């Protein structure tokens, strides 16, 4: 049970941290922030990796893990790139000013 109670602490503190991190967000950044946070939620790729590594020679499990990893990376890579594209527009304008 020690992992479980530790994990609950981690869950609690992580949630509190998340609540505190974002205070006042200018409307300009709503979309990029959502998109960036969305990319981070693709962290579940770690779970997919773990699943593949631990599945050994179990083919169906390897396939499920691999598809899961694909979905997660689609989320992560797409998410970060799209966010960067949005934010690049703001910064480009700033340098010209």
């Amino acid at each position: 049970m020690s992992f479980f109670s530790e994990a609950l602490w981690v869950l609690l503190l992580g949630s509190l941290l998340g609540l505190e991190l974002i205070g006042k967000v200018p409307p300009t950044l709503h979309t990029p922030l959502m998109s960036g946070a969305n990319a981070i939620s693709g962290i579940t790729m770690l779970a997919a990796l773990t699943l593949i590594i631990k599945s050994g020679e179990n083919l169906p499990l390897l396939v499920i893990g691999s598809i899961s990893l694909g979905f997660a990376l689609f989320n992560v890579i797409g998410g970060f790139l799209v966010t960067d594209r949005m934010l690049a527009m703001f910064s480009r304008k700033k340098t010209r000013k």
Partner: protein
Amino acid sequence: MTFIAPIKFAIDLLAVLLLALGIKGLSKVRSAREANRLAAIAMILAAFGVLLHSQGTIGISINSWIWIICGTLIGGFLGAVTARRVPMTAMPEIVALFNGCGGMSSLLVALGVALFPSADGSQGALGEVVRNFSIVVSLFVGAITFSGSIVAMAKLQGWLSTPPWTQSKARHFFNILCAVLALIGGICLSIDGQNGLFLIVISSSLLGIGVTLPIGGADMPVVISLLNSYSGVAAAAAGFVVGSQLLIVAGAMVGAAGLILTQVMCDGMNRSLLSVLFGGALGASSVSSGSGGGEYTNITSCSPEECALTLEAAERVVIVPGYGLAVAQAQHTLREVTRVLENADIDVSYAIHPVAGRMPGHMNVLLAEADVPYEQLKEMDVINPEFPATDVVLVLGANDVVNPQAKTDQSSPLYGMPVLDVQEARTVFVVKRGMSAGYSGIKNDLFDAPNTSMVFGDAKKVLGDLLLELKELGVGSKG
């Protein structure tokens, strides 16, 4: 190999720190871009940590490597291509799509562990019931996130409309039924780890559809933000399933931060989260019964030429951009028009409604792409008192956000939503493709107002014509 564990631990800690700094930085304009990169680096670090740790402890078979590389390449490639190709106008849809895929990933992990319990690495660490419960949560939230996001995307793209039955009481019955079925499945699965697996997946997918489908109009961004928060929760649940603390922290952070962002968005629209999820659709049902409908009686239409003549005589012009501008990709043409006006010493500003377009910040992103100076973008609270002193307002493909009904008509579903008071200005031009209603499907009283003229046509074409007319008049070319 004893040094592997501390290294993994250090990497995880660093990754969490970077992720936290990343989320924090993303909420400030100046640091946003670096913060995004920081978060990306954290993700790479985290993945590296998992690979290193596994290689060092239990080893990674060639087979596993092959499947890892396959998944990485395909998913990563598709993600990169999608991110590059997607037009800026489709940003909200694409966020919804990415988000749905994140949920799907968590769902699949839980599914894999549930189908083949032997693969669960944390079996010893976690009790049977706890593990099964984590699987249930991961399946449930993952499925809702996936199906909800896909429906949100399809609705934003216009592939799906709002079916009438979802506006009746029947939808509550449907949703409650799905929720109950998912609960039953969850209880079964929690107890024996076998039964009820697909019952959960199917009923929670249907629940995701049932909850998202009735929601329309300006509320969609809030839903996407909420689903984004869910995908964090799903990731945290997946963390419990595979026994990864890093996953739990990151998932919890995104879940909580997403919730705050959702709240911030709701505040911007002066609505409560509950009314978005449940009441909004009930309000919309009154449209079908006709209270928000009605015919237009006093439409004045005019040509770009007349519009140009009025603009020439103006001293203060406010542009109200909306989704129509985004669809027509007219932001660059708009910028040329406003340059001409500025050259003629006409004061130009842009009124940005918090939910103009399909997502908060949508218009800012779009206008930034066209090099519109940041200072000219004015938020609703700032610009609203200035409308009475404005000569010309140019509404470009916006509709619901300038509907005076939101202030005047208590029976209107829009009632209570903050809007731009453009009707206070001396003259209003509304550039619009036709008389069709806005996204909410509600009649706009603004179009009937005596000081409003409609300029029918695609925003890009109208602005192009307007530009020609202005140049012909010699506006802005003096000196």
